[in-house]
């Protein structure tokens, strides 16, 4: 048998390449109606009246009164309505839907509806939210969540310190920019509601439908359709259009399709949390970091959503890859009258690592040290305790990885002798980082309790029954390879269909770099069981998650093993900057990752290139600003994503460091590849310009200010 890492033909590609794959917008059903959403045009207001013109025949309107169950999106808290009742909290918030047989007519009917608002003073920025002392969006304080934890003795260390280096960093929004906008088709037959669409987490949608309809699971069916990208944007958000389409299908008795257009999608769906992070590091006379005092603030938008969980990852990542014994870490996520901030590849990590890695550069600059040596002196090692007091059980190959990245990129020669031919400024910089795999703490055990099943048919075909969604990342292929390998059968004997909650158990959401590590491991276990009984004709096996022995997590106090496993990375980026326009080109990208065994080399390479492009886009050109409570860049003409010309080939290596927990030694990789790009870019730009930066994205507009000393 070939090694498992050898590239396989992807199971989802033939359909996608031949055009046979039917995405949500391609679906046509007998009698199908098209839905269009009426959205708030003001950031914060009471709804005083809604004037709806007489309904043309065949059309219907759906509002909050059509929700038989709870008008609340079930995420962490129940603060977000599916459809606004008497107030709106962000531009783009859904108020009602119209459905009709003609898409254009339905859209034009929506445009004729007039909403009378009584406007209230909105909170439009993080600073405004932090300074607010009343008239809050949610509850009795300006934030959704506030957490803090300590390690060691900060005060004592501060007294011993010879100096302090302090920085404040800010980061902006990022839009997931999946190729396929959000879309759902719902149909209601024989008392069962079936919702199909573009999604990462079929069971989140089951929960949302249960909440909104007040029905039992046996009347709810969710099926994933081929999905044109997610990046976190199809984690929690699709629950809203799914419920909308379902309500319309139930009310009209006809299939209903709801597909967003791009402007609508950018306007109202979740985006990466903007942040403001202050880090104070206390150093002894030799430049050892004794302690850090860190404050994290994130902009959560109008409703709580997943913000508290994103904040947790931010504050568990903000310590970086460094062993610092004395810490005080505090974080808050604030409410503002903007679209809800939510899941996005990296999930709080990109902000945290940009801040910490750039801060390490600034410490080095201010103390006259080499920034790589400063990092190396403080690298975490196996057996160390993490910022939350977790135990690093496995080898932590940071030295080896960093050395390799520096060697591949010829870092030191380029760093010290910047090439300034042709009047351009060259610079090179690095970042070292991790990504904690799976749900935070004991979440896999406490919240998700994932299960998988394998079914063997009489013809010997094995069906994988799991709710992990193929969103372009290769999950179908990777997970099927694990099953084939475990059963010692060819991949062609394994079937993986788009998940259907009628047949697939809940193996958890397709998020958090957990699919291979957690779901893959369960499939391996179910496979081993199946292998033992292989001589039986047709049967099923099941595996359930159990929290590994020796791990512990105290959620209240943020103490213990924040993650089941860690993946590590080191990136180097080289830039060439034009000092006249402050425009720059990325000249080289080098990356070393430790994600354990790569289950499929080609899929891993795809994740590396895509994650790097998305991470460099986040760091550089992906600029999304709000003005008057509305996003400004709402098209792909103005919201700029990198193209192949903006990204040179990525040179990457994987180090050999098998995971003890993961299947065949594999760990999570999907998010890791994004996390280190922006800080390496920032370090390269600092090296080129000789000036510190403290903001993302690093646009030429911002760099011109930096060069002018502003």
């Amino acid at each position, binding site marked *: 048998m070939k090694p498992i890492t050898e590239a396989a033909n992807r199971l989802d590609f033939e359909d996608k390449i031949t055009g046979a794959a039917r995405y949500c917008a391609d679906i046509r059903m007998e009698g199908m109606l098209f839905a269009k959403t009426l959205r708030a045009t003001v950031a914060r207001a009471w709804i005083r009246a809604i004037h709806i013109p007489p309904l043309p025949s065949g059309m219907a309107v759906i509002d909050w009164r059509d929700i038989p169950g709870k008008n609340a999106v079930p995420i962490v808290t129940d603060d977000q309505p599916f459809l606004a009742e008497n107030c709106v909290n962000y531009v783009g918030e859904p108020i009602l839907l119209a459905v009709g047989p003609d898409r254009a007519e339905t859209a034009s009917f929506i445009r004729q509806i007039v909403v009378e608002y009584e406007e209230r003073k909105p909170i439009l920025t993080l600073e405004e939210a932090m300074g607010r002392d009343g008239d809050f969006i949610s509850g009795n304080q300006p934030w959704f969540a506030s957490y803090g934890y300590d390690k060691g003795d900060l005060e004592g260390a501060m007294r011993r310190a010879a100096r302090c280096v302090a920085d404040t960093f800010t980061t902006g929004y990022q839009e997931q920019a999946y190729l396929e906008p959000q879309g759902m088709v719902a149909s209601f037959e024989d008392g069962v509601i079936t919702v199909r669409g573009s999604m990462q987490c079929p069971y989140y949608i089951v929960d949302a439908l249960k909440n909104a309809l007040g029905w039992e699971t046996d009347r709810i069916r969710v099926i994933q359709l081929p999905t044109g990208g997610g990046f976190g944007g199809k984690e929690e958000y699709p629950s809203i259009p799914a419920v909308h389409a379902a309500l319309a299908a139930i009310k009209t008795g006809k299939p209903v399709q709801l597909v967003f257009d791009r402007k609508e999608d950018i306007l109202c769906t979740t985006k990466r949390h903007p942040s403001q992070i202050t880090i104070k590091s206390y150093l002894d006379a030799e430049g050892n970091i004794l302690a850090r005092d860190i404050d994290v603030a994130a902009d959560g938008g109008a409703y709580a959503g997943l913000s508290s969980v994103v904040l947790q990852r931010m504050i568990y990542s903000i310590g970086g890859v460094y062993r610092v014994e004395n810490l005080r870490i505090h974080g808050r996520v604030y409410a503002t009258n903007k679209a809800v901030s939510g899941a996005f590849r990296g999930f709080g990590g990109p902000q945290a690592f940009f801040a910490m890695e750039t801060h390490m550069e600034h410490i080095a600059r201010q103390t006259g040290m080499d920034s790589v040596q400063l990092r190396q002196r403080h690298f975490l090692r196996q057996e160390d305790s993490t910022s939350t007091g977790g135990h690093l059980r496995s080898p932590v190959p940071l030295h080896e990885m960093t050395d390799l990245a520096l060697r591949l990129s010829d870092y030191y020669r380029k760093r010290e002798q910047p090439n300034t031919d042709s009047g351009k400024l060259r610079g090179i910089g690095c970042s070292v980082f991790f990504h904690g795999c799976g749900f935070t703490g004991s979440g896999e055990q406490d919240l998700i309790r994932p299960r998988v099943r394998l079914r063997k048919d009489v013809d010997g075909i094995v069906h994988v029954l799991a709710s992990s969604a193929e969103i372009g990342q290769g999950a179908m292929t990777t997970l099927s390879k694990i099953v084939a390998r475990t059963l010692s059968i060819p991949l062609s004997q394994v079937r993986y269909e788009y998940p259907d909650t009628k047949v697939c158990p809940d193996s958890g959401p397709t998020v958090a770099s957990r699919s291979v590590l957690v779901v893959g491991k369960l499939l391996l276990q179910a496979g081993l069981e199946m292998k033992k009984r292989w001589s039986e004709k047709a049967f099923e096996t099941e595996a359930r998650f159990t929290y590994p022995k020796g791990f512990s997590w105290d959620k209240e106090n943020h103490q213990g093993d924040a993650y089941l496993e860690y993946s590590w990375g080191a990136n180097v980026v080289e830039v060439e900057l034009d000092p006249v326009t402050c425009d720059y080109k990325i000249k080289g990208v080098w990356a070393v990752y430790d994600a354990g065994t790569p289950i499929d080399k080609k899929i891993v390479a795809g994740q590396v290139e895509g994650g790097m492009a998305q991470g460099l886009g986040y760091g550089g050109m992906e600029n999304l600003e709000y003005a008057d409570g509305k996003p400004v860049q709402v098209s792909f003409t103005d919201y700029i994503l990198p193209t192949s010309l903006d990204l040179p080939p990525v040179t990457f290596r994987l180090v050999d460091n098998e995971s003890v927990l993961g299947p065949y030694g594999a760990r999570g990789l999907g998010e890791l590849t994004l996390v280190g790009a922006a800080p390496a870019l920032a370090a390269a730009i600092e090296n080129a310009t000789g000036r510190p930066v403290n903001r993302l994205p690093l646009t*030429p507009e911002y760099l011109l200010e930096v060069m002018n000393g502003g």
Partner: protein
Amino acid sequence: MAVAVYPRNLAEALRILEIQSPLVLAGGTDLMVKRAGTYPDECPVMYIGNLPELRQISRQGEELRVGAACTFTELLASPLLPDYLRVPLAQIASPAIRNAATIGGNLCNASPAADALPMLYALDAHFILVSAAGECRMPVRDFFLGPGKTMLAAGQLLAEIRIPIREGWRCIYRKVGMRRANSLSKLSFYALSDCAGGRLQDIRIAFGAVAPTVVRSREAEMKILSGLPVEEIILMYNGLIKPIDDARSSSRYRREACIRLLKQYLQS
């Protein structure tokens, strides 16, 4: 659903234009990305991309004549095109878009950020406008009124662009975009100089995307030729540039980057 009409020649196109007032579509790369509802559904669409009269490239003495429906790919492939026209066109969009996009569409769309514009201002190009009633010749600077606004009248097509050719022009074009491909200009800087015999004979300077139309001043160019100090030249252009804040950049950046590019150019 819109009705599509495909005239076979220019005369037929002009007749249809006069009678049906259709929406004119050449490469469609500007029209197709406009949002639904921008144009009334009942409006017919007339495809002019294959009208033979609009697809010629020829040289008549010291004048290059370019048909409005030539695509950028065709222009870039033509041996008649001098480098100082080739350089800006090669930076437009990406190969796929250049295969469809026409120079006439770029001009009639009249975006201040259009990359074909600054060079035509700098070169004192003329446009040939045609209608069923006849044709007229108009200097480029008279054609553009502001963003999306031109002198093109109902019933008229842009047929040809006439560009004076001159040996000895050296050009630079700096398109400051948002990325390396498929990106509109935040600002652009086009300059021509003729240094025949080692002496500066003539100079032309044009800025794109920093005012409602391209910024060019013959007066300032004459001052440069007369040897006015760089600082004073910069002051003159600083007064002519009127950039805005928008989704793609800030007025502050646009102004300062223009001035820095100009300074670098004048000092070199």
